[in-house]
């Protein structure tokens, strides 16, 4: 499998008045053609910033300070705005969390979709319109001709997210970054949206990075999972392996706190402590203060090691599996 995207040692820092926030601090991963990678983590773990870094949409005071982002072999980490503009929406598309907010409320669906095509290709409006209609049909929107004439407020949340997905797939991108696309939706709609996204990646061979805090969502969708904590990937591997036999104490804790893993009537399991202050990260492993297996060995930052076909950043991998 050839990698569509390779991220190597990516560091995106925000230089705020209060200090440097290392939102993304040395992230490595790659996504192959047709592969779905789940990027899992709590709020503030840097998963969305990773996505925005790939698109080159980090606003000051933030910037990419180090690392390479190779897209089809080309390093786009420091590419010009012009170059990035030709990639955005064309080769790399994005799907956002809240479909209520990502469509412009005063423009009709057709205007917004056609514009997305015309920004990158010289085709006549009629053809762009037909492609938009077909794209809406592909994501399971009934009577797409009529929906094209609608304004966003006339569509339901699930419908709008379908429109957003259709727009992302319009130009047949090589990579789609989906930033918590189902978080704002009902559970039943979630399942449908995931199904549509999965179907489309299979059909088109598009690679996808699915950013979420919900392990249950990626469990059934992603081929591989990367778990992020405090700006770093702490565990990365095949979905089945990570879900069934998590090695990193944080992954163990995350899986343990999924409600279905807990017994009815008992107190839900939760990871002790709070997510660390990004301005003042503990030395060494950022998870150590919350980790019950932490020892002095955790103080120098743990390097990446390969254990059981996975990359993890921990000196005490939990080989015994879930003990939480």
């Amino acid at each position: 499998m050839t990698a569509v995207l390779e991220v190597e040692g990516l560091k995106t820092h925000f230089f705020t008045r209060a200090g440097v926030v290392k939102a993304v601090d040395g992230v490595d991963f790659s996504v192959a053609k047709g592969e779905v990678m789940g990027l899992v983590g709590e709020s503030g773990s840097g998963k969305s910033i990773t996505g925005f870094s790939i698109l080159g949409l980090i606003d000051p005071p933030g910037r990419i300070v180090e690392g390479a982002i190779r897209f089809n072999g080309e390093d786009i980490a420091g590419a010009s705005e012009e170059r990035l503009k030709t990639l955005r929406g064309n080769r790399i598309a994005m799907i956002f969390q809240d479909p209520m907010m990502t469509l412009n409320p005063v423009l009709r669906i057709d205007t917004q979709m056609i514009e997305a095509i015309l920004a990158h290709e010289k085709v006549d409006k009629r053809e762009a319109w037909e492609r938009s209609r077909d794209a809406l049909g592909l994501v399971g929107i009934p009577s797409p001709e009529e929906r094209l004439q609608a304004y966003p407020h006339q569509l339901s949340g699930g419908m709008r997210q379908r429109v957003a997905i259709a727009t992302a797939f319009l130009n047949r991108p090589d990579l789609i970054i989906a930033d918590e696309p189902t978080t704002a939706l009902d559970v039943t709609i979630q399942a449908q949206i995931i199904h549509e996204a999965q179907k489309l990646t299979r059909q088109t061979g598009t690679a996808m990075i699915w950013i979420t805090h919900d392990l249950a969502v990626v469990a059934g969708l992603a081929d591989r999972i990367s778990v992020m904590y405090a700006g770093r990937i702490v565990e990365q591997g095949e979905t089945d392996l990570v879900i069934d036999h998590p090695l990193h104490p944080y992954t163990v804790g995350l899986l343990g706190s999924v409600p279905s893993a807990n017994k009815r009537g008992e107190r839900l399991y939760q990871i002790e402590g709070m997510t660390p202050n990004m301005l003042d990260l503990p030395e060494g492993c950022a998870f150590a203060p919350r980790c019950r297996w932490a020892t002095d060995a955790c103080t120098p930052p743990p390097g990446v090691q390969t254990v059981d076909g996975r990359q993890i950043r921990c000196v005490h991998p939990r080989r015994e599996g879930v003990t939480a």
Partner: protein
Amino acid sequence: MTDISADTATVDETAKVETPFQRFRSEFFESWIATGALFLLGLIIILALLAPYITPQNPYDLGQVDVLDGRLPPGSEAFTGYTMWLGSDGSGRDLYSAILYGLRISLAVGVASGMIALVVGMAVGLVAAYAGGRVENVIMRLVDLQLSFPASLVALMLVAILGKGIENIILALVVAQWAYYARTVRGTALVERRKEYVEAAQCLGLSRTRVVFRHILPNCLAPLIVVGTVQTAHAISLEATLSFLGVGLPQTEPSLGVLIANGFEYMLSGRYWISVFPGIALLLTVVSINLVGDHLRDVLNPRLKK
């Protein structure tokens, strides 16, 4: 069963074809005050437009104005035979005719200066909001400086420098008012800019001008329309003020302000009509525009929605 499904089908149908404008229109006409004000405003505009055809006299044509008709009370008969329902002023102008002609000037000046100030202010405000940094600072401090002077003072000074004449009045009013628009647009654009649909548009690889004019600007229009109507009313009263003070439009082509000023000297001698009738016309115009603008704000502001 069939009835119900047919019913929902029609409901769906209407929901589908209702554009934002149609929704806005139906909400606007819910208020009878606003509807009445809009009707009155429409009437005033039509009367002003048709003035040459429905007035017995052209008050600007000195050949038709007879000094012998001067200061006649309302209802008197003029020398040439028609009835002066609203009386006449000191130079023998039929007040009814003079008011309609005056309205033409007042409305034209108000709308023209309002529109030009809107375009200028909008462009400046958008640039400030989108460019940010030093550009924004310079522009907004300039706006603050401008707004710290009373608009009438700015206009007065400019007319004093530029001289009389319609173009100069319009120019002075534009200068006195662009800052209101700039501030409004910049404020709204800053909010809109942070919204996700702008980020999404950027993610689609759209050009910067397209994002600004096609995506951000239409979302800033609602407050702009409101400020536009209120500022147009303001421009009309400003022009009347300038004319009243004698630095506005020339005596030979009286606007409402000039008419009020002309009648002012007769007020104490009991000839109230020369000032009062133009004053009422001015009042009705400004109030009706303000009422429309006020209700526009209610309808266009999503936070005030029921």
